[in-house]
């Protein structure tokens, strides 16, 4: 089952606390997840901790599922960082700022596992 979502990124305290510890597993845990409300997770057939593939027109990334009841239906949140930016929009509409909020995404449960920071960056070098 796939769902369509509106993807945003943003800061969290854990992401901020790992800004200068990005090689640590704590950074991976703080950033490599996607929050949806539990109704959306249920539609996906996903539980917290399951692997989700988040795909946009720009790329796709695998992250963990997390529930957040503060999210309205169809709003997906990934903390700012390399996992979010793998799928957000590079288009700046002529003002310098990429589209880090409001990118249409398709989300589904996957058997693939999220890549750690170094493995994700390696994909750019291999590209």
């Amino acid at each position, binding site marked *: 089952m796939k769902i369509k979502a509106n993807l*945003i990124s943003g800061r969290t305290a854990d992401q901020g606390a790992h800004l200068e510890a990005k090689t640590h597993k704590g950074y991976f845990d703080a950033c490599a997840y996607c929050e949806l409300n539990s109704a959306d997770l249920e539609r996906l057939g996903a539980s917290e901790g399951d692997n989700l593939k988040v795909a946009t027109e720009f790329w796709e990334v695998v992250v963990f599922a997390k529930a957040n009841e503060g999210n309205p239906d169809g709003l997906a949140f990934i903390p700012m960082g390399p996992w979010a930016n793998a799928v957000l929009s*590079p288009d700046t509409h002529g*003002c310098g700022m990429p589209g880090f909020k409001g990118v249409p995404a398709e989300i589904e449960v996957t058997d693939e596992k999220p890549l750690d920071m170094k493995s994700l960056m390696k994909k750019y070098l291999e590209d």
Partner: protein
Amino acid sequence: MPVIKDAVCSLCGSLCDDITVTVEDNKITKIENACILGHSKFVGMFEHDRIETPMIRKDGELVSVSYEEAIEAAAKILVSSRRTLSYGWCSTSCEAISGAIQLAEETGSIIDSTANVCHGPSALAAQEKGSPSASLGEIKNRADVIVFWGCNPVHAHPRHMSRYSSFSKGFFTEKGRKARTMAVIDVRKTDTAKLADKYVEIEQGSDLLLVTALRSIVNGHEDVIPETVAGVPKAEIIELAETLKNAKFACIFFGMGVTQSRSKYKNGDAMSSLISDLNQHTKAVMIGMRGHYNVTGFGQVATWETGFPMAIDFAKGYPYYNPGETGANDLLVREEPDAAIIAAADAGAHFPQKAVRHLARIPVIQIDPYANPTTELADVVIPSAIVGIEAEGTAYRMDAISLHMKKLIDSKFKTDEEIVKDLTEKVRELKRGA
């Protein structure tokens, strides 16, 4: 044992200047008053992965070299490059930023700050319409209505509300939170929204509509407002507009929910107009919730040295600025730079995939205390001392108030200021040789 009081935290734009640090044997053993982010910054000195030595990539692997070798390798990249991007410089001092601008001028580079992916649109908005602002001290002492729009200080600026805004007690606001109205406008119920008197949930990307509706009401034209705007019922918008109009002193703090969403700088532009409208009725100001602790400082230094706050292109021999053209992300997406310096910031982590792909293809010089995603792409890595802990310097808080950051302990690492000076001298030497 030395106890250093009123140290400035060099993590976020709140620049809390009341940190107490205990130092024993050149190590920080106790940190008081810092939030989770600030605490992590100070303990990071001993717990996080420092870049221990300068490094150069050889056969795909980063190998240790001396500072001199790394500076020479970096200078060679700069001299042979025809279009260098210098990006970041926001987790460092104004003194280092000034040197970085000089280096960019010397090498005909483009220099841009982290505002490119943060509050850059706010700078554009300020140029279009102005930025009616105040110091955080004024907010603490006077503001009875505080709005957080598209920002989440509980997570991004954890002590902001207790030191400067919602919960703080000031000269005319001695009752603190009890006598302040706090509103949050956001697309999801954040932890900040949970603390608010009013939470207005808007449809993502429709900030401009809501600002425009508020302006219409403040200007006496509520009849033109449809029953729902941006997913918010008309009655709720009227209530918010009345709260703002009836304030003694209102401040709208805005974040990346405003700058990164559809309409981007036009959101800030409209917000500035709303503040202007409100000032027909009361006193109102707006302040951007800045991320890196000295991103505001970059804007200040760059403006007084070049006339522009960011995205400055020196290719023509004089400063040229047009963020959609000379912004770091646009340049990388167009695959224009043939080399890059990434300093005191992390483009590898914070740029979208298309920009990072280009960074992976070109020579990258990194100047930073810590290993991060940019290190994985870098060809020359130069470690630096941490400003506010191992080096002193000036930084500007989010309200453009400058503060002096103390040096708390000694370091074996060169400061950003020294590295930039060394690089500039080496570049000049190589150019003379050519």
